[in-house]
């Protein structure tokens, strides 16, 4: 009861302050704007106090780190025990070139690998396919077969590093290639650790690297979840990703809500396929954006953990606390980088990275300053990595767990984020669940609307972007950019055609036939599991395009509804 009395006193004091102190100030010096909003265009109040947290219960909402509902972090000691994994995304040209960048990054103190693939690979085409012309090795490394994967990880002991692979539609195939390289290196399955992105729903929503219709695609994802649960206990079989949703222009809340809604679909599907929730849920991981609005981002991470813990425990009845944990990777917002005055991006990335760290991320990629224009040079990527190291070792923010807890503003934002997400979950359920909602274009439209209103706010100068709509410079000295060797495409095509000539064609054909049969049938109890068949095809040096082509043949391709 004394709490209520305190709150009453605070509210009275606030009213008094508004009359005595605030009002005269506003009269003399009005505020810079009539309304203040976050980068997501959410209204922000002048001041937050305990009066904004009426009914808020510390134990229920925040509690202690390493315990339900994990608002404060998934580990009891967080970065006092172990820093986040500094994981820089890299890939360009051929496998041999990216292998050199990987080795360089490991020498610079990077702790885990993260692979960027080129668009033909992401779309399941071989490098010599007509659609691949001009794209080979451009925005990532080109991988056509196991031979390329062997070159990519040549001299890198896969039992000692963990590897993240940013790939979705063909994730099962690239994962099979990685597993096959582990076999060749003599690394036992249970020692292989890493992540495949494999979040197909966000492709239809935002990233748009889908190939097949939604249902068979979700089946392929579920297949990898099953295979991982049986054979690769250290592998994160899905990285449920908000990053691309945000980069497509969503708000922080939309990113949070749609990502968790996608996650719930994967949980439901794996349960339908016969797995116990606790047999796979601990291997689900997440991937969020960290944008410029520091406090909003921190609130998003904290709300994400709390929501997922509640969903897993209460909705899916998971009993293993590891199933309740939202483990996440984070990447600074590429969309927030500017081509104008590119050095300014170093400061943006530092703020965004700080948001990820204050939000309690498990691993982090920091973008390089030149990424609004090209893939990063080695120097630019090094500055981005050093930015993380400065936050880790110099800023002091790692000394205590969840340092922003108890801030009236941050706690209020966290609660608002959570409430807003539940609201979206209800809307999605009303539409018949997330798969139906995506088919109807609901999240796509929400995101397109948010992206457009943000762009308009910039053009009206309600939102200021330094160097773009204020503090601009006429002449800007050029910065060095990485250019992808134009010969890489020809070299890669050569390599692929040589492989096609040298492998045992009968073995390839037999493996592809077996895969086709499995793709046609559907037996979730194992007979028609696709992963073992994909592995056989990969071991026979079937190409990515051939394997994905089998599924294209059986399942057809997806065309999206046009939503502008």
């Amino acid at each position: 009861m004394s709490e209520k009395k305190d709150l009453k006193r605070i509210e009275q004091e606030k009213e008094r302050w508004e009359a005595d102190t605030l009002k005269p100030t506003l009269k003399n010096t009005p505020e810079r704007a009539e309304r203040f909003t976050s980068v997501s265009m959410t209204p922000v109040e002048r001041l937050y106090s305990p009066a904004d947290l009426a009914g808020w219960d510390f134990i229920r909402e925040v509690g202690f780190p390493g315990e339900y509902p994990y608002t404060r972090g998934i580990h009891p000691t967080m970065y006092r025990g172990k820093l986040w994994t500094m994981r820089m995304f890299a890939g360009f040209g051929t496998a041999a070139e990216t292998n050199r960048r990987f080795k360089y990054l490991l020498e610079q103190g990077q702790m885990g690998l993260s692979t960027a693939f080129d668009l033909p690979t992401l779309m399941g085409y071989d490098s010599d396919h007509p659609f691949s012309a001009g794209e080979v090795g451009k925005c990532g490394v080109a991988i056509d077969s196991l031979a390329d994967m062997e070159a990519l990880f040549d001299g890198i002991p896969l039992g000692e590093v963990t590897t993240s692979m940013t790939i979705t539609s063909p994730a099962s195939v690239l994962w099979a290639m990685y597993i096959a390289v582990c076999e060749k290196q003599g690394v036992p399955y249970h020692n292989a650790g890493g992540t495949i992105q494999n979040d197909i729903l966000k492709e239809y929503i935002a990233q748009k690297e889908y190939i097949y219709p939604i249902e068979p695609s979700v089946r392929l994802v579920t297949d990898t979840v099953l295979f991982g649960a049986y054979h690769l206990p250290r592998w994160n079989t899905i990285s449920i990703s908000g990053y691309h949703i945000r980069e497509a222009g969503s708000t922080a809340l939309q990113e949070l809500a749609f990502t968790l809604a996608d996650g719930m679909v994967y949980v439901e599907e794996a349960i339908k396929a016969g797995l116990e929730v606790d047999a796979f849920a601990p291997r689900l991981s997440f991937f969020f954006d960290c944008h410029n609005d520091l406090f909003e981002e921190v609130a998003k991470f904290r709300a994400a953990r709390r929501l997922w813990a509640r969903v897993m425990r209460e909705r899916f009845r998971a009993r293993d606390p590891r199933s309740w944990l939202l483990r996440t990777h984070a990447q600074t917002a590429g969309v927030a980088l500017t081509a104008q005055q590119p050095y300014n991006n170093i400061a943006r990335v530092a703020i965004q990275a700080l948001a990820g760290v204050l939000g309690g991320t498990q691993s982090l990629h920091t973008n390089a300053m030149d990424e609004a224009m090209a893939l990063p040079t080695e120097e630019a990527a090094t500055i981005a990595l050093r930015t993380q190291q400065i936050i880790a070792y110099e800023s002091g923010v790692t000394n205590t767990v969840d340092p922003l807890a108890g801030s009236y503003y941050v706690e209020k934002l966290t609660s608002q984020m959570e409430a807003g997400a539940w609201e979206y979950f209800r809307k999605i359920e009303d539409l018949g669940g997330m798969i139906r909602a995506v088919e109807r274009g609901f999240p796509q439209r929400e995101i397109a609307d948010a992206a457009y209103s943000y762009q308009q706010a910039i053009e009206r100068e309600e939102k200021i972007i330094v160097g773009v709509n204020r503090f601009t410079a006429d002449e800007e000295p050029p910065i060095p950019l990485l250019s992808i060797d134009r010969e890489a495409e020809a070299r890669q095509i050569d390599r692929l055609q040589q492989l096609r000539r040298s492998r045992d064609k009968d073995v390839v054909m037999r493996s592809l036939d077996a895969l086709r049969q499995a793709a046609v049938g559907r037996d979730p109890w194992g007979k028609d599991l696709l992963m073992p068949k994909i592995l056989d095809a990969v071991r026979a040096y079937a190409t990515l395009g051939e394997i994905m082509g089998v599924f294209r043949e059986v399942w057809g391709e997806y065309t999206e509804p046009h939503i502008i």
Partner: protein
Amino acid sequence: MGAEAERKIRILIAKPGLDGHDRGAKVIARAFRDAGMEVIYTGLRQTPEMIANAAIQEDVDAIGMSCLSGAHMYLFPRVIELLRERGADDIVVFGGGTIPDEDIPKLKAAGIAAVFTPGARTTEAIEFVRRNVKSKAV
């Protein structure tokens, strides 16, 4: 003549190549539409042939292409080539995306009338189209 003057500017917004980043394309498509133009959006994954065909069939005044995959040096000029082959080089072609400064003069030499990089305002693109399409009509 009056009908000619009142004809709305028709513009094709296209995503060439395999790149799926469509935030920019959608934002600019909406901005053109809000500026009173007729906008046709191709959707994703269009080959240069598909884009040139659509532009001719839809009788557009301009094509805006968006590419964030780094393949612009192949894809953009290829569309121009195809338009020329088919006698449709009166269509104004411009582009946008993650395009290094050093590529811009080369793209212009290949016939891309303007290049808008991250941070460009939609109003710049709208003004550009109005100016260039109008001068063509005279």
